[in-house]
């Protein structure tokens, strides 16, 4: 044993063996607070919420197991389907216009223009403004006697009850959301545009590519990961729209702006916590499916372009 213990080689081996163990232990110790906090305040509630989605529960009496009853009721509910349709409409509209505007403004700001910093800041300012403030401002602007109708009347057009008309309330909400959010897309796209090597554009020009061809074959492929990021995050956010509807229309008129999360809050306020949890999990499933679809779609396109 003595000779073994004295062996320098063995000491190194032992030290190497103890080293990673110590390091792993230290890592777990440092991770523990975050893991415990996330476990107690995120994952445990999520698990309990999943359980309650299978129960009839009002938060006071003991939950009563109903199996898939809440999910069946929700999928059969015209109100839930209406809220889902509104949410999809909102998402499609805002995720078509928002990233489009963001990309367009990023392309403009990527040119050598004067006051580029000013414009970048101006576009980004609404992003850091509270959504409630933005929604309230738009509500005032779209009021019967708001500035939008004042301008229309000034140029000889009739005003419109934008938020009181079920056919224009949701698009009005989209307008407020896009205005508030497209500065974020602008900044993200601008950063991505500036990371595309200029040599690629030079090479494309040498090959005789025009502006459109350069955009189609150099810019867009270069932006692919950014586009994926923008759409995944944007769609997740859009599906959870609540603040704008709460402030601007309170879900009306005629439920034309009632979204899934608004519906969830309604169930919660009616103390139908089981059903509210089921709505949250249906939303989770929808978002997971949509995100997966986007990843698949973008990776296939990526494969094709390689």
């Amino acid at each position, binding site marked *: 044993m003595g000779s073994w213990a004295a062996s320098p080689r063995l000491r190194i081996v032992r030290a190497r063996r103890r080293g990673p163990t110590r390091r792993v232990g230290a890592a777990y110790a440092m991770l523990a607070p975050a893991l415990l906090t996330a476990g107690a*305040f995120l994952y*445990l*509630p*999520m698990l*309990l*919420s999943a359980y*309650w989605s299978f129960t009839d529960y*009002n*938060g*006071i*009496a003991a*939950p009563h197991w109903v199996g898939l009853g809440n999910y069946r*009721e929700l999928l059969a509910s015209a109100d839930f389907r209406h809220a889902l349709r509104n949410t999809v409409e909102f998402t499609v509209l*805002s995720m078509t216009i*928002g*990233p489009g505007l*963001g990309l367009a403004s990023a392309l403009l700001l990527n040119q050598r223009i004067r006051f580029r910093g000013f414009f970048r800041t101006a576009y980004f300012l609404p*992003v850091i403004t509270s959504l409630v403030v933005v929604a309230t401002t738009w*509500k005032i602007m*779209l*009021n*019967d*006697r708001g500035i939008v109708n004042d301008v229309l009347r000034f140029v000889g057009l009739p005003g419109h*009850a*934008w*938020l*009181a008309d*079920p056919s224009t309330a949701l698009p009005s909400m989209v307008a407020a959301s896009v205005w508030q*959010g*497209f500065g*974020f*897309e602008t900044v993200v796209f601008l950063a991505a545009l500036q990371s595309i090597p200029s040599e690629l554009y030079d090479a494309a020009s040498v090959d005789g590519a025009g502006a459109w061809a350069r955009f189609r074959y150099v810019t867009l492929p270069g932006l692919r990961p950014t586009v994926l990021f*923008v759409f995944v*995050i944007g769609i*997740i*956010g*859009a599906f*959870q*729209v609540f*603040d704008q509807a709460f402030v*601007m*229309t*309170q879900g*009306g*008129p*005629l*439920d034309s702006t009632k979204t899934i*999360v608004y519906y*969830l809050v*309604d169930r*919660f*306020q*009616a*103390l139908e*916590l089981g059903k*509210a*949890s089921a709505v*949250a999990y249906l*939303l*989770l499933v929808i978002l997971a499916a949509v995100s997966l679809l986007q990843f698949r779609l973008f990776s296939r396109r990526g494969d094709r372009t390689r």
Partner: protein
Amino acid sequence: MRMPRRLLFPSAIALAVALAAVVGCGGSGGDKPTTALSHDARGSLTVWDYYGSATPIKPAIAAFHKAYPNVHVNYQAYDYDTIAQKFPVAVSSGSPPDVATIDMTLLPTYAANGTLSDLSALSGGKVNGEPIGRVYPRSALDAMTFDGHYVSMLYDFDAYALYYRADLLARKHLPVPHSWSQLRSVARQLAEPPDRSRFQVLPDTFHFAQMLFQQSGRILTPDDRKAAFDDEAGVSALGMMKGFLDDHSGVYWGADQGDSSGIEGVKDGRIAMFENGPYVMGILKQSAPEQRGKWRVAPAPVGRQPGSYLGGTGLVIPANANHKEAAWAFTQFLLRPDQQIGVYKYAGAAPATAAALASPELTKPDPYFGGQAPFTVFRQAMNTATHFPYVKQWPDVDGAITDAVTAALLGKASPQKALSQAADKVDGILGG
């Protein structure tokens, strides 16, 4: 793009739900009469108040503290919507206030789910030594009762009367309307130049119910199992509301216009008449002082019979409140006549107890209303007022009626069709 921070929202909901299980909550059963709180009692209680800056509750705390110097009141002010959202979360998560102000329309949902203390048991049937039956008018007692016991003490009441611009009526030599036909006629003439001032039409259940009750109609059948608002009385009530819009004598006041008091329209002259509760008196005085002397209040013009919706603010003690004895002592304190007058003095609203309503403070002439004593009008309205049905599905029933009223007023459906569709929906809600 919508910010990812909203990802936090479902987690917050999940957290609230989860905490409910972790903490566990008691039911409403088991409330026993409290003994009178002694002057030397020690402890603290948490009070939630939605009155805002003009609250009568905050000034009452100082007086309460004199009576109970060792009881600390943890006063928390929230707005109306916040309390509506926070209350179920707080109760279900086991961290409720001890006393809260609650809109009476939310009472059935909270009571049906067992979130409220049984005040009949807790009070021993008396408020400040007087039988509860003698403290309130009959209609208020009905509104405070759920499933045979009191679950709330009415703090201020809401019953509708007609507010009108007396100066505009006088200029056009128009009478104060007493019937629906007179109301329509006066509204049409007020809408003519040069005033172009109109009657406010609100697309909500409150104002539809106001008209419905005046037509001897009901919202639900007496057993609360089916809709009853789609009968001839309901169609007539909704037709009356739509009539104002059809002949342009009414101004449609949706959620986009501002709050239901219509104060923006009052200030810019669009609104010359509206039906609403006594709380609007305080809003008028505070927000439209320049119109002092121009407004009056009259009993709401009658269809077939006098009638009004009855609501207001209730004081409730959550079933799982931690300090029920102190909570009941504080509730009683707020219902003392001198404190009830504060509801009028500070908030401009109508105190609910009979003693306060009869006090000289409330029956004296009010210069804002041209020397009229408007409270007498609301007190009269309270006597024939009816609270909304006490079913736990009330928020959904309310939503269905509001949608029907909105659809009819916007011309998306006839009153008959809108109400029939809503009735089918309500039958499903109540049967489900």
